[in-house]
């Protein structure tokens, strides 16, 4: 890799040993992927995937202390993934004890570190930082130093920004340095599709299942997806963006997809069409049967697979304002059908703090509260990262949450049926 004089000086220690190690890390990272140079980070904000102060991850926070003690340049400000704790979310006495005294006992230390490093504030703790209400929405072509798989795949695919699937810690180092190695999804070549996916479903494919199927098939490759027009149209409106948010999160967690193109819809596919497809790309056809098979293959790892659900999470990644409103309508309608006043299963909808604030300004908030559904800014994945949850029957419509925890996946329609008492979990 060829460095500028300034970058070389940093590597040689002109700004101290810590900065030299930061640059060395970025250089090694780039050279592993054949990067020839560093390029400036051009977005307004970064985004870090690490938002949790886990007691056992102490080495991470020790490393951040080293960074903070290293006389580093003032880096880019950034948003962060959701916080792991919120008293509004139902938890037993024992769970609260485990969360606060054992698991997340480094939370205060870590948040103080993030503040010094430049986190944007309380509103910035969400995995969907790109939503308008949050304000970390990169422009097309901007170079990012982000981590958080669902946010990276959204920024690349839906917004047309350029970001590799960076890891936690590396993304902060890119924000500190102000430059990142140029390779992979930062290049035109790396953004070409090596898979063509033909969706031939008769029914609207569930975004979480379609994303899961594609992620497992293409792994880290870039898919060009055809046949979605009947379901998503050709305009990137709020409904399409919500669909793509949930779809993308599943491609990134069930596989390692960092960018997808949807024919006639996502910005690069609209501009460049099938010229985005690389020579020799493989083709895969998906139909309703494929998706049903994928769903059936998900393991159920509850201690008692026949247990009645004790908790339901919707919103991993965090929900949008429109999703909160749509779900409010749907829950109310479902309860009206079953004659219930409140949901049959304790249910938590998760969303960014500024989205919750906007939601609370609408009449929907009171209506949803009446159904018993709790709205929280929490990260459900972090909530479930404890052994007590293994014996707790948690259900979700999130494939990402299913992948990383013992939560059991159901389609959105099934989740609605279960929480409104129309159907029982099976």
């Amino acid at each position: 890799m060829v460095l500028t004089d300034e970058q070389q000086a940093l590597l040689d220690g002109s700004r101290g040993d810590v900065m030299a190690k930061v640059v060395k890390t970025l250089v090694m990272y780039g050279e592993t992927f054949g990067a020839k140079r560093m390029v400036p980070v051009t977005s307004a904000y970064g985004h870090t995937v690490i938002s949790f102060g886990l007691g056992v991850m102490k080495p991470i926070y020790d490393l951040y202390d080293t960074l903070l003690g290293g006389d580093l340049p003032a880096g880019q400000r950034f948003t962060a993934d959701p916080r792991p704790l919120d008293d509004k979310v139902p938890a037993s006495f024992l769970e609260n004890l485990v969360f606060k005294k054992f698991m997340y006992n480094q939370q205060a230390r870590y948040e103080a570190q993030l503040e010094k490093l430049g986190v944007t504030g309380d509103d910035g703790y969400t995995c969907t930082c790109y939503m308008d209400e949050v304000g970390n929405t990169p422009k097309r072509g901007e170079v990012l130093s982000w981590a958080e798989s669902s946010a990276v795949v959204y920024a690349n695919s839906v917004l047309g920004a350029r970001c590799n699937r960076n890891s936690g810690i590396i993304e902060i180092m890119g924000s500190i340095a102000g430059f990142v190695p140029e390779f992979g999804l930062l290049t035109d070549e790396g953004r070409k599709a090596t898979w063509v996916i033909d969706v031939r479903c008769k029914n609207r494919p569930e975004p979480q299942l379609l994303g899961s199927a594609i992620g497992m098939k293409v792994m880290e490759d870039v898919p060009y997806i055809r046949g979605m027009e009947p379901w998503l149209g050709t305009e990137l409106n709020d409904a399409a963006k919500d669909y793509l948010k949930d779809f993308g999160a599943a491609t990134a967690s069930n596989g390692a997809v960092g960018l997808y193109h949807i024919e006639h819809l996502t910005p690069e596919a609209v501009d460049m069409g099938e010229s985005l497809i690389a020579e020799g790309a493989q083709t895969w056809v998906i139909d309703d049967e494929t998706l049903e098979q994928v769903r059936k293959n998900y393991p159920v790892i509850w201690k008692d697979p026949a247990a009645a659900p004790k908790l339901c999470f919707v919103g991993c990644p965090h929900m949008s304002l429109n999703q909160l409103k749509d779900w409010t309508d749907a829950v109310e309608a479902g309860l009206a059908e079953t004659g219930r006043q409140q949901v049959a299963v304790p249910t938590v909808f998760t969303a960014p703090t500024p989205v919750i604030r906007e939601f609370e300004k609408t009449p929907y908030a009171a209506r949803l509260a009446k159904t018993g559904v709790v709205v929280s800014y929490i990260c459900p994945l972090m909530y479930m990262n404890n052994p007590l949850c293994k014996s707790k029957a948690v259900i979700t419509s999130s494939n990402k949450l299913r992948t990383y925890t013992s939560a059991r996946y159901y389609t959105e329609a099934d989740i609605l049926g279960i929480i409104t008492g129309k159907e029982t979990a099976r």
Partner: protein
Amino acid sequence: MKVFKGRPVVPGTCTAEALVSREGFNTLASYQMALMFGDKKVKCGDQNNADIYKKPMGGKALCLPMTIGSTTGGMVLYAACAMGRQPACMLFSKHIDSLAASGAILGDVWTDVSMPVVDQLGDEFLQYVQTGMTITVAADGTVTVA
């Protein structure tokens, strides 16, 4: 016995027992519970990976195509290194992915741990190697499977 030649991403030497994941290795799902609760054997927690679910990963030669999943992957791998819970080495049949590379590099630059990482060993490597075989890694990326 068979010899494979790959690219040393983090050069080093070691001899260890193979643990083989023929599917993408989900770093967060595999490590999170083991690290969180101090499991010294570092048993794999990824319910979706039938090859290695519940098998001890600590000190093994982890053979895999690539890693998948959350972008906490590199951080998790770094934490495993800093806590002494890392595999003996990581051997990739394909080109290493950005998350695994991050973790391996962070471990190399910011800790004193030695965890050799070799990639591009080829599909034949992953077809040949079986869990329990003995792996020897040389600094130039030569991997001997016996």
